[in-house]
């Protein structure tokens, strides 16, 4: 045994200086995006990649440390287990270092031969996904992973140290435990990473530690045959190097990254071994008795430490592959066929690139308030007026200028933090690879302007390498020719060619940018003219027809005039809704009232659908006026719809329906409603219409699809006199909204099985707190219900069932109904029936009595 104590005692705890930071980031990463408290780091003294990564993670914790990155890190070790399980790999083989040669041995069945590179490619992709913003983030993600996996403090520090190289320092010459010249003692000025490396070296290779035999080593490190022997030899070699007492050799060992990874992995496997031993000891005491929670914990910890070891090993290979690639690329720039350098595996590079893109996309998706893909495609994500998650906007506006002409285009933001820059640049690239951008470019010239700008930057950087004061602005100014003459003598023949090529290209791109931008300007001018001369006339004609209905005339004349003047379609729909509600409330006969109420919301839907063709005729007429065959006219229409439309991501054949309309509060007494309440102090008595931020397009009515009647509205004459609540009949269940995700915990249910009014039992109460992607938390309070679940719930889960009257009794109600309040608003009907774009749930509910 290397150290008897190691196998039987808990690893010694030591203070981890980065622990509070890691803990903070870990806690923030678990929160919903709206609850995150970013910490602005003004200045970073430490210039290491890790320090910069910490600063970036403190500022945007969830962008760098989130479910995606943590899971990817853990999945990087998962393949080993999957392959073992599938029986394709010898179960005793150490697959933590799978390479082509080992796979040849490992794959037993030729018929099942998997892609030999697959495990490594997969692992490289996953690590890249976990550290998509740059390798420096591995320490932050690794540290948080270790914390959440329950690893001890020292191991958390090991995982936080991943990817960090200590600053080169001369170490104090002191004595090792073998009495030889060495560096065991810790010096106050030492880089703490060196200090930790030294400590690990002493613990593993110091004289007090017994040297392991091959068998003992195998027990801890796993593997068999040549792999085990190779690792054991490495272990012996490091031990001999450390015990040599030669300061130079020990220094080499301290800065040797491979040695560091090896020791760290060994440490983790030691801990796994200890946990296994403990579990085995308990097993021997209790025999085949059922597994106890303690034994399960020990088993789990054994697995977690093994995972940590594998992550370290996988990361080592990842970093090595990255280094090889960079060295090769650098060498290739100087000489076409570098000798002595290993040719990097391009498939692995591809896997890493894919992983990084995946990691970035999924990380952003985790915290973005909206539908990421449609918003990237439509450009909404990059628009500061439409993207509410401001800190995620990666671009800012810039102007492409040649002479007096300018074209606006987006460029990546710039930060003093390389990880943030990495994100900005990647996302900007994504923006300019979007097909929608290139459709939009036909009207704006933006894509060409950006290409010209990128070419200009690249050319400028190239020139500045040889001509110190090269000024590209002067070259591109109206007086560019004289500037060129001025620097001509300084240019080599190749550079002259380079300048010529650049200027030709710039001219071509400039022309494209300005010409296409001109189409856009022409389109805007056309619309202005069209609206005044044609559009208004068409709307006037339609309005005359609409106003023939006396009800519409009475209630919606204002809305119709607004539409005629502005063309705002939503104002017309809103007005018609009010009109129909007005008709309903005027009706006096019971039949009239009932029909009016039940049909009002349906009628609004129908109106919207019926008017859609009118609206499209209106748009089509634009094409006629412009000359139907005009290609430009087509683009005018399509670019507007594709790029800027609310449903820009909807497939053309898809039909979206929105139901309901916002209604103002009304009062009355119900046929089924509260009977035993004493009233409350819930609100002011005035219904303030609810208008919220948009909800995702897949959100459905939380009350299901039944026809629902409102029998008492907010501040009604009866029990709701002071309560902004609604009583609903026909709503049998309440469902968690589609944006709920049990794993994220953004929707939480609490259930009180028994609540009372003054007169007695009122059934149960369920409170559902649902935080939407727009950041708004809807708190639904429901009474007279039986709870079905508690805690975090996922989309569509039935969270409450409206009780039958025989279950609640008649102490507090006169019939089966759902009493529902939306805490924080006086307009629950607005929340329930409002359209998604106003933060409502689009339910069809009759007007309250």
């Amino acid at each position: 045994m290397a150290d008897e104590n190691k196998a039987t005692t808990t690893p010694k705890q030591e203070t981890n200086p980065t622990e509070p930071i890691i803990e903070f980031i870990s806690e923030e990463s678990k929160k919903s995006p709206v609850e995150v408290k970013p910490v602005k780091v003004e200045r970073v003294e430490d210039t290491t990649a890790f320090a910069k990564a910490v600063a970036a993670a403190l500022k945007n914790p969830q962008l760098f440390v989130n479910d995606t990155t943590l899971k990817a890190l853990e999945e990087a070790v998962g393949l080993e287990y999957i392959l073992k399980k599938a029986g394709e790999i010898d179960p005793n083989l150490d697959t933590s270092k799978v390479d082509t040669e080992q796979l040849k041995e490992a794959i037993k069945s030729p018929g099942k031969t998997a892609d030999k590179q697959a495990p490594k490619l997969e692992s490289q992709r996953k690590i890249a996904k976990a550290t998509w913003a740059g390798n420096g983030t591995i320490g932050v993600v690794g540290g948080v992973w270790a914390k959440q996996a329950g690893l001890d403090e020292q191991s958390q520090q090991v995982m936080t140290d991943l990817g960090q190289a200590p600053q080169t320092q001369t170490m104090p010459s002191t004595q090792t435990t073998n009495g030889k010249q060495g560096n065991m003692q810790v010096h106050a000025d030492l880089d703490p990473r060196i200090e930790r490396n030294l400590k690990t070296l002493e613990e593993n290779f110091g004289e007090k530690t017994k040297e392991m035999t091959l068998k003992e080593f195998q027990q801890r490190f796993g593997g068999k045959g040549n792999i085990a022997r190779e690792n054991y030899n490495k272990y012996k070699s490091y031990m001999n190097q450390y015990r040599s007492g030669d300061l130079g050799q020990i220094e080499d060992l301290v800065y040797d990254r491979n040695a560091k990874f090896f020791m760290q992995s060994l440490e983790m496997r030691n801990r796994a071994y200890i946990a296994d031993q403990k579990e085995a000891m308990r097993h021997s005491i209790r025999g085949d008795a059922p597994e106890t929670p303690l034994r399960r914990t020990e088993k789990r910890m054994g697995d977690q430490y093994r995972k940590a070891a594998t992550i370290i090993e996988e990361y080592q290979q990842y970093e090595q592959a990255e280094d090889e690639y960079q060295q090769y690329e650098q060498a290739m720039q100087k000489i076409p066929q570098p000798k002595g350098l290993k040719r990097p595996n391009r498939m692995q590079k591809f896997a890493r690139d894919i992983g990084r893109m995946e990691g970035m996309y999924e990380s952003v998706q985790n915290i973005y308030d909206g539908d990421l893909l449609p918003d990237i495609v439509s450009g909404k994500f990059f628009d500061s007026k439409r993207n509410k998650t401001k800190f995620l906007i990666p671009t800012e506006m810039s102007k492409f200028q040649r002479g007096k002409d300018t074209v606006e285009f987006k460029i990546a933001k710039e930060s003093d933090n390389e990880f943030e820059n990495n994100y900005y640049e990647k996302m900007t690239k994504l923006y300019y690879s979007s097909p929608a951008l290139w459709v939009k470019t036909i009207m704006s010239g933006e894509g060409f302007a950006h290409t010209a700008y990128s070419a200009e930057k690249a050319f400028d950087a190239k020139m500045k390498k040889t001509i110190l004061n090269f000024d590209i602005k002067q070259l591109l100014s109206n007086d560019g020719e004289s500037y060129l003459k001025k620097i001509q003598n300084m240019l080599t023949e190749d550079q002259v060619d380079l300048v010529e090529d650049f200027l030709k290209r710039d001219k071509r791109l400039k022309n494209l940018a300005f010409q296409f931008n001109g189409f856009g300007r022409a389109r805007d001018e056309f619309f202005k003219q069209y609206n005044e001369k044609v559009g208004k006339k068409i709307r006037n004609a339609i309005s005359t027809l609409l106003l023939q209905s006396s009800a519409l005339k009475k209630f919606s004349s204002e809305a119709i005039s607004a539409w005629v003047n502005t063309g705002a379609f939503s104002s017309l729909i809103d007005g018609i809704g009010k009109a129909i509600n007005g008709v309903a409330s005027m009706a006096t006969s019971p039949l009239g009232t009932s029909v009016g109420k039940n049909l009002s919301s349906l009628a609004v839907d129908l109106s919207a659908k019926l008017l859609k063709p009118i609206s499209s005729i209106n748009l089509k007429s634009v094409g006629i006026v412009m000359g139907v065959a005009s290609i430009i006219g087509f683009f005018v229409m399509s670019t507007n719809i594709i790029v800027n439309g609310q449903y820009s991501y909807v497939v053309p054949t898809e039909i979206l329906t929105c139901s309901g309309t916002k209604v103002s509060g009304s009062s009355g007494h119900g046929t089924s409603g509260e009977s035993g309440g004493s009233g409350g102090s819930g609100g002011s008595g005035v219904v303030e219409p609810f208008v919220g931020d948009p909800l995702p397009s897949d959100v459905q009515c939380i009350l299901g699809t039944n026809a629902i009647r409102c029998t008492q509205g907010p501040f009604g004459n009866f029990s709701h006199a002071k309560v902004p609540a609604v009583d609903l009949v026909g709503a049998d269940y309440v469902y968690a909204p589609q944006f709920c995700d049990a794993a994220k915990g953004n929707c939480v249910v609490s259930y009180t099985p028994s609540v009372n009014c003054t007169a007695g039992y009122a059934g149960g109460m369920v409170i559902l707190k649902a935080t939407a992607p727009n950041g708004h938390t809807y708190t639904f309070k429901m009474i007279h219900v039986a709870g079905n679940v508690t805690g975090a719930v996922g989309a569509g889960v039935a969270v409450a069932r409206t009780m039958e009257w025989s279950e609640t009794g008649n102490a507090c109600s006169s019939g089966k109904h759902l009493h529902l309040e939306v805490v924080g608003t006086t307009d629950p009907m607005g929340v329930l029936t409002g359209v998604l774009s106003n933060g409502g749930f689009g339910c069809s509910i009759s007007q309250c009595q």
Partner: protein
Amino acid sequence: MEDSDAQYLNANNKTMNTTKKLITIITAGAIVLIIAAVLFILLNKKDKTTYPTEPIIQESLSTTTTEKINLNNINDMADGDYPVWRVSQTTKLTNVKELASTLGLKMTSSVDGQYYSWGEEGSSIFYDLTKNSVVIEMDEGIPWSEVTIKNTTFSRFIKKYFNEDWNYSLFKTGQNNDGTTTYYAKRYINNEYIIETENQLQETDYIIMNGEKMVAAKFLLTIFTEENITVPLISSAELKSYINLETYPKDIIVKYDSVENTVLSKVNYLTEDFTTIIDTLDSCTASSSELVYFYKTFSQELLTPVFKLNLDCTITYNNEPYYVTAIAYVNAVDPDYVSN
């Protein structure tokens, strides 16, 4: 003569030796038999102790309850081994459909696997599959000729319409304002163990009678099958040390009846501060305990033994404490055999 005496003595000795041998053999045989019997009993007993090989999942109780419970007044708690039952996923949809048809009701709405609803003017049947219970409400009533409603009334009803031989304990009768009477019952499992729920009085079933007509009823239709495993109960000493851990499985149901004329006259579910008052629940002391089986939803896989504790607690309103009663359902299974 001496020879014959000697022969006689020899013969006698032989006989005695044979007898002794026989006695020894019989004694040894008896001892072997006793040992074998003891071993058989012990081994047989061990075979019958069918503890679960994997921890069973406790799904019916929550693990986020922060209120503390004082068990100091509880000296006598159930112990030993108790069986665990499986919640069968068999539904009674066919029977409910037949019942609806018998009563002349038409299906009005349904979501497969979640609920089915039948109705006509003044009458309805609602079959909720989240809990697998049916509520029948008939304005006209179902004629029921029994003069007195007893345990067997529930059994007869369930046999007649759902073809099950289940036994019930009728534990409470309540008079309603409209002249009807509600009879509350709890179903027995295996004729021995009581099942309780989160319903108003923890009942599994109720029947509402208007004279000789049954105007409403609610029946739990879940079948519980034998799982052939038993679990040891947690000792009271261990329970005392674990019960107030937030993650220890438990649910507390507060009864607000005692504050109807005080707190509830000012604050009730219609007012904003009702939820605030609920959160003030404190100082819960258990006055008695019993062992029951707690059924929460149709999706729970197992029905496990739980301790039902009757609690005296306080809630605070306007800085004044008010006494309320509550019921706690607390995991009763030895923690080594249960996981959340």
